[in-house]
């Protein structure tokens, strides 16, 4: 039988875990968005010195498990460079570097989807490269790829659970601890699942809303 009373006592722990999950997701999304954009641009560069290292970076982070990437940063950095990010830092940076690779490919597709003539029109108007990107190309590129960006961010929020492997007390870790203490893993982890839903569903709704608004504005 479900014993809800036992679980209710742990709600503050769950709340703290959810907050940490949210922080992890925010920090790694920010790293991923900025780095991903830079990677998308260098990947498109006609200079091999820029596009080749980017290619290697993207494929490396897309094809190795995020769990291993977190472990590398958490255990590897202090060993190799005597530089300790801490559990939260290692997890946030590793997830950020990882999602950057995926976002880079999405941004690249979005930019490639903007008609070449848009660059040319901006050019004959005298707009520089950065202004053209900022005011002409990116607003259209992002619109093209809003759905995959939303999906990637939702994946990332759930992937923060991997940080539990190095002891970051985020949602899944809290669930595991509660399960161990109460011997009720099903209830303890169902609450975890529900909490992830509460965190991710608004993101899904938000992206749908933005998409609808922008397509209205364009018509």
């Amino acid at each position, binding site marked *: 039988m479900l014993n809800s009373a036992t679980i209710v006592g742990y709600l503050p722990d769950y709340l703290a875990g959810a907050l940490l999950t949210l922080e992890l997701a925010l920090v790694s999304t920010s790293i991923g968005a900025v780095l991903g954009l830079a990677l998308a641009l260098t990947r498109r560069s006609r200079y091999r010195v820029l596009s080749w290292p980017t290619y290697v970076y993207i494929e490396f982070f897309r094809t190795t498990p995020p769990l291993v990437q977190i472990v590398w940063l958490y255990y590897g950095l202090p060993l190799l460079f005597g530089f300790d990010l801490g559990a939260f830092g290692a997890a946030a940076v590793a997830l950020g570097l990882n999602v950057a690779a995926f976002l880079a490919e999405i941004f690249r597709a979005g930019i490639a989807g903007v008609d070449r003539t848009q660059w040319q*029109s901006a050019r004959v108007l005298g*707009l520089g490269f950065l202004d053209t990107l900022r005011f002409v190309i990116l607003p*259209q590129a992002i619109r093209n790829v809003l759905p995959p960006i939303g999906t990637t961010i939702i994946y990332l929020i759930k992937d923060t659970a991997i940080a539990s492997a190095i002891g970051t007390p985020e949602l899944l870790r809290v669930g595991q601890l509660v399960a161990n203490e109460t011997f009720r893993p099903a209830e303890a982890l169902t609450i975890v699942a529900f909490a992830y839903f509460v965190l991710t569903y608004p993101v899904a709704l938000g992206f749908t809303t933005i998409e609808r608004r922008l397509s209205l504005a364009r018509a």
Partner: protein
Amino acid sequence: MSESLIVVADLVKRYGSETVLDHVNLAVTSGQVMVIIGPSGSGKSTLLRCIARLEPIQRGQIIIDGLIAAIGTEEPQSAVSGPLMPSSRHDIGMVFQSYNLFPHLSVLDNITLAPRRVLGMSREEATAMAADLLKRVGLEDKRDVFPGRLSGGQQQRAAIARALAMRPRIMLFDEVTSALDPELVGEVLKTMRALAEQGMTMLVVTHEMGFARDVADDVIFMDKGSIVERSPPDQIFDRPTGPRTRTFLERLLEREGGSRRAK
């Protein structure tokens, strides 16, 4: 004799091994309207794109107002014999066949973006100027509309206003009426006529022979990457000197004969 605003000297443009412009020479004086005609693939559009600095050139140079705007990539360093035009210069406005307005911006923002970012105009200043331009092209009520809601002719007039907002000294028109429904061609040509009357230097690639006859100072006939003939419209239409020009014009008039477009 007045100094040329545009000088194209011995221009060679190739795409791979295909030569698109073959030693083209052209001089245009300030205030002149040049209409360029010729069969498709003759290099008309490419010539405009080279002058707009959208395409690198292989040989020769393009001089705008005494400054070297483009020089052939295969020219030796010593060929640079004058001041270079900085890449940020925007003396040349260009209007394309496919309008190319920015679809995510309103008509107003399409027009004010470059003046604000490049010329450093304030929002108020740019908006006032845009309102003025929109009146000139007959779109004063379309300020806040997005391009997707405009007809082709309206989009093209908005594109002309956008180009004029940078106060160019030269306007390039690349088959700007070719994508339009026939009944919308007139309104765009009218805008271009007005611009010509105000003394704008214009290079116009078009198949609108009525426009060429009325507005052009000179008509240039291009074929296979070369300028074959350059003459005032009366002469080129009534007494073309070259056989290729004659054949081209005969075919064109034959086709237009049945359904001649309103001027």
